[in-house]
């Protein structure tokens, strides 16, 4: 395979780690099947990464993906023909697979490695620890490739023209929102539409606001339903979101448009002439839906979704998401692949290609392809609290079901209390 | 060589009884014609013989073997369907060749037989056509051709000539007769409404009525000595004239008083016990002659004159109210509507039936 970056040539990369890895792993004649969520451009990027693994080990690697990866992995594991390694973005799904005994624990050594090498290591270990079939918790997954969600996107030139400043606190953000309305503009573009997954962008909002209004421990309890959905903290976060989304003058198209506007379309309002909105809350992947030719950092930029000045004890929480790799069939090759993910090079190669963030401290920050990526990487590394997307941690029926539906109902006019009660009812039903 | 034997054959469609128990022995090589009114069960009987219709009751044997449950293909039959039943997707040639191909005949043999059948039936120029591009008569001929191409033990024909013109009908009829002669061992069963066909082709005619047999016999016997009123009326066209009568004297010859008052005597012996009973006196239209003498059988007014060329039909009113007597007189007559005409008839050719409709002669 052609290697994207010639080993040894670019000093940003830790080539030594590749050489070290090569030594202990000769997998010639073996095959490794990986099932992952990346398709299209992402697949090409990932291919460039695993090319180094193939080059180093001589393994015959087959990567496949599916539009319905959730369904596919359930079918494949249930039917007894799983891939060797699965990489999935949904901890809830992984928990389920683990509880059914389809995953192989990665062992204490890996756990220790994560604690040592990942920023906010304990968060990551907690995230990747699930109960197995026998009920004992173990590390089953390896976080690889992170998205930061606590971002607000804007067009710097529009801010400049209108004389707006990037807000540093949530209070400022709310003030800015009102100011834009006063200026005759519309501050926000919010779109929850996503076909069958409609509603999910709102869950990010709520989670982000939850981390800014309640403690991380409350957040953890919430996602495990140790406090009910109807808890005041949760309802409060919902209402915070409602402040933005349920105000007709705050959102492009009015509150009614929120639920049905496609999340992929909604950022386009930033770039319209005249602009349909000035602000857009979305994760780090969103630039791929910006108009062609948009240069992030110049034509569009982001700022960290600020915390409340009134709640300094919460620090700078970061909401994120990411994919986790796990062993679905225990073979030397799959073990080796997890080992490979522990090398800096496995991270740096993707960092250098864009749309990849990592909390891996040893990965060279300079390898990030551009300034915005680096800025996001810094947000991640600087975070005092990192929390994984709550809806992904909840059981599928809630996090990818009742919660979504609830949010659609919420922006559709239902009160926060009612919505929370509905979701809690659904949660009770699956217990 | 016992041929085909039907014993108390019955058929019902659900609650409708169609065949009420038929007993019939058909010798091998015989030519049997089924006649009977429309809907009396001829086709049904034929289809049962072919094995296409389940036999509800009774036994059928071919050559001594019970065949009730033997499928059609094993009975060694060929059949011409009343509704043709051509294969719509095959050309005329293929329609005729189908059976032989199934039987695995050689190509040359098939070709020879198809062409000769087509020749006989004047179909040669249509061999490449599909049935839908044929006229009604042509379709019927294909159906016949299909049957005669094969070489079966039993031929079944269901009104095979009904859509043909007179000339072709005669020609085809003669071909069938020839076929019958050439294949002395082949039994033929033939349904027709055509008197001429029935009379000329049949070794024996079976007269059916409402699902049972009225009479079986050679054509002339049926014509001359019909067993009952039904057969008498059915055989011969126009039908036999029937005049209600009363027996006035019995003996070697029977004396009668006809409706209308005329008396007559017929050469049929009756028992003395019959005197005084009502009877039906029958005379065929073609047995009536016009007379000017006094010794006439009856007299009447001509209501319709139908000149057919070779014969003239006279419809005579006045004897039986509402039912004209028909006379068939050779040649073209000068008789006009409204004329009063007297008729006489050969005594030997008169018929007499009892009140139940059975012939005195047969008794």
């Amino acid at each position, binding site marked *: 395979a052609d290697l994207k970056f010639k080993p040894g040539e670019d000093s940003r990369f830790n080539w030594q780690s590749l050489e070290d890895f090569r030594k202990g792993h000769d997998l010639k004649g073996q095959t490794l099947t990986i099932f992952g969520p990346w398709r299209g451009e992402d697949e090409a990027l990932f291919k460039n990464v695993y090319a180094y693994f193939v080059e180093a080990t001589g393994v015959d690697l087959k990567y496949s993906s599916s539009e319905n990866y959730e369904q596919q992995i359930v079918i494949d594991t249930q039917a007894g023909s799983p891939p060797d390694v699965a990489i999935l973005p949904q901890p809830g799904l992984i928990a389920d697979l683990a509880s059914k005994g389809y995953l192989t624990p990665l062992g204490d050594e890996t756990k220790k490695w994560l604690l040592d090498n990942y920023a906010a290591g304990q968060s990551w270990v907690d995230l990747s620890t699930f109960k197995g079939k026998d009920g004992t918790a173990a590390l089953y997954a390896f976080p690889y490739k992170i998205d930061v969600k606590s971002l607000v996107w804007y067009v710097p030139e529009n801010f400049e023209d209108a004389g707006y400043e990037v807000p540093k606190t949530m209070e400022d953000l709310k003030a800015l929102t009102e100011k834009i309305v006063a200026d005759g503009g519309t501050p926000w573009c919010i779109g929850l539409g996503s076909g069958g997954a409609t509603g999910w962008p709102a869950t990010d909002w709520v989670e982000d606001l939850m981390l800014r209004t309640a403690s991380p421990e409350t957040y953890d309890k919430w996602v495990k339903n140790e406090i009910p959905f109807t808890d005041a903290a949760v309802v409060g976060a919902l209402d915070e979101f409602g402040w933005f989304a349920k105000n007709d003058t705050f959102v492009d198209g009015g509150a009614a448009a929120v639920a049905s506007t496609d999340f992929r379309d909604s950022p386009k309002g930033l770039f319209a002439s005249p602009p349909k909105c000035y602000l857009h809350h979305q994760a780090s992947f969103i630039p791929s839906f910006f108009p062609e030719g948009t240069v992030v950092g110049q034509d569009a930029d982001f700022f960290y979704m600020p915390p409340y000045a009134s709640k300094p004890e919460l620090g700078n929480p970061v909401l994120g998401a990411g994919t986790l790799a796990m062993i679905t069939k225990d073979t030397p090759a799959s073990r080796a692949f997890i080992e490979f993910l522990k090398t800096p090079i496995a991270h740096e190669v993707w960092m250098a290609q864009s749309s990849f963030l990592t909390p891996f401290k040893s990965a060279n920050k300079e390898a990030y392809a551009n300034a915005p990526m680096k800025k996001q990487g810094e947000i991640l590394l600087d975070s005092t609290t990192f929390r994984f997307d709550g809806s992904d941690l909840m059981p*599928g*029926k809630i996090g*990818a079901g009742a919660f979504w539906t609830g949010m659609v109902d919420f922006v559709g006019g239902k009160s926060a209390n009612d919505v929370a009660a509905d979701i809690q009812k659904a949660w009770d039903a699956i217990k | 060589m016992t041929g085909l034997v039907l014993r108390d054959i019955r058929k019902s469609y659900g609650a409708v009884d169609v065949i009420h128990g038929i007993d019939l022995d058909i010798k091998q090589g015989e030519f049997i014609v089924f006649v009977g009114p429309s809907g009396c069960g001829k086709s049904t009987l034929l289809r049962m013989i072919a094995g296409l219709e389940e036999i509800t009751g009774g036994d059928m044997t071919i050559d001594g073997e019970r065949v009730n449950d033997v499928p059609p293909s094993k009975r060694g039959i060929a059949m011409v369907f009343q509704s043709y039943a051509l294969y719509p997707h095959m050309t005329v040639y293929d329609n005729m060749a189908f059976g032989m191909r199934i039987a695995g005949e050689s190509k040359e043999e098939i070709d020879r037989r198809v062409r000769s059948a087509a020749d006989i039936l004047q179909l040669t120029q249509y061999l490449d056509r599909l049935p839908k591009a044929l006229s009604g008569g042509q379709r019927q001929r294909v159906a016949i051709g299909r049957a005669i191409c094969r070489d079966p033990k039993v031929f079944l024909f269901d009104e095979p000539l009904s859509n043909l013109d007179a000339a072709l009908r005669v020609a085809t009829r003669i071909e069938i007769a020839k076929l019958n002669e050439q294949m002395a061992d082949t039994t033929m069963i033939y349904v027709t409404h055509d008197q001429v066909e029935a009379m000329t082709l049949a070794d024996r005619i079976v007269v059916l009525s409402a699902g049972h047999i009225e009479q079986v016999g050679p054509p002339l016997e049926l014509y001359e000595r019909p067993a009952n009123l039904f057969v008498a009326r059915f055989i011969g066209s126009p039908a036999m004239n029937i005049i209600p009568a009363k027996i006035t004297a019995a003996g070697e010859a029977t004396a009668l008083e006809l409706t209308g008052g005329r008396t007559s005597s017929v050469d049929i012996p009756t028992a003395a016990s019959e005197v005084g009973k009502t009877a039906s006196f029958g005379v065929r239209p073609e047995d009536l002659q016009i007379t000017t003498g006094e010794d006439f059988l009856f007299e009447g007014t001509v209501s319709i004159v139908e000149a057919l060329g070779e014969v003239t039909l006279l419809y005579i009113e006045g004897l039986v109210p509402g039912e004209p007597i028909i006379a068939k007189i050779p040649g073209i007559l000068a008789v006009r509507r409204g004329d009063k005409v007297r008729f006489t008839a050969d005594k030997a050719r008169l018929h007499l039936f009892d009140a139940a409709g059975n012939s005195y002669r047969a008794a």
Partner: protein
Amino acid sequence: MSQLLFAVFTMVGGVLACAAYFFGTNWLLDRIFPSKGRTGAEASRNLRITNAIRPWLFMAPALFALAIYLVYPVFESVRLSFHDRSGTRFVGFSNFAWMINDGEFRQSIFNNFLWLLVVPALATFFGLVIAALTDRIWWGNIAKTLIFMPMAISFVGAAVIWKFVYDFRSEGSEQIGILNAVVVALGGTPEAWMTIPFWNNFFLMVILIWIQTGFAMVILSAALRGIPEETIEAAVIDGANGFQIFFKIMVPQIWGTIAVVWTTITILVLKVFDIVLAMTNGQWQTQVLANLMFDWMFRGGGDFGRGAAIAVVIMILVVPIMIWNIRNATREMEGH
């Protein structure tokens, strides 16, 4: 190239193997129980045997495939419906008990009945009308191809298509959904069609009707062409006009096929889920049984017990249709 060769080879091989089965078994049967050239009694005995066996020979591959691919999963579903989420622990009727108390399930049942009432009837109706109308115009085939197109379009394609129809943009901004564009052009205010409870069901149904009309059209147009031309001619002579010929002569004669199409679409409606999944995923009260089942089966690892229980309900719903078909088949066989 080699892939092409392989493809051609496997294709031909597969098809030939299948044909060989039928010829082979049939030949064997005639070999084992010969009737040609045998004497009477033996021949007819053999014939009885072959006649009893042959239907099963003809049906064997079909029955085999049906048994494995459909009957076996049915039993598996029934079994799973009495088990817990991982399909291992027996839980009795608790899945069904849950179901009856589940609001979403009741919503789905209600919606499914709406679908069953509307979609099969309209799709069959349009299919019939189009088949009849296009039958006798010179560009009928072109028209049919165009109307058939939705059937041929992949589901992802269809989802985009209807996005361009139902899309909603706020008032004042440019509409990219044609429905709202029309509404706006007529002076109305744009609507988020997918979110209007109850009515949104109908907007979803429109999609299925749009797709399934092609199916009905093709099947019915084959049936229409089987009608004996003479009966139509006779009706023309009898003075019937186009409508009378259509409703009194053609429709009754293809009634059997209409019933088949209707049945097929009805059953398909019971199974419909991809439209709902792609357009709303059951939100805004548009949930249907099949999507609910899918949801429980696969979302977040899946709950096989509940998924299977819903599947069992779907399968039970088809029982009346089966009974009706038994009746039809027996009546039809009597007629023969």
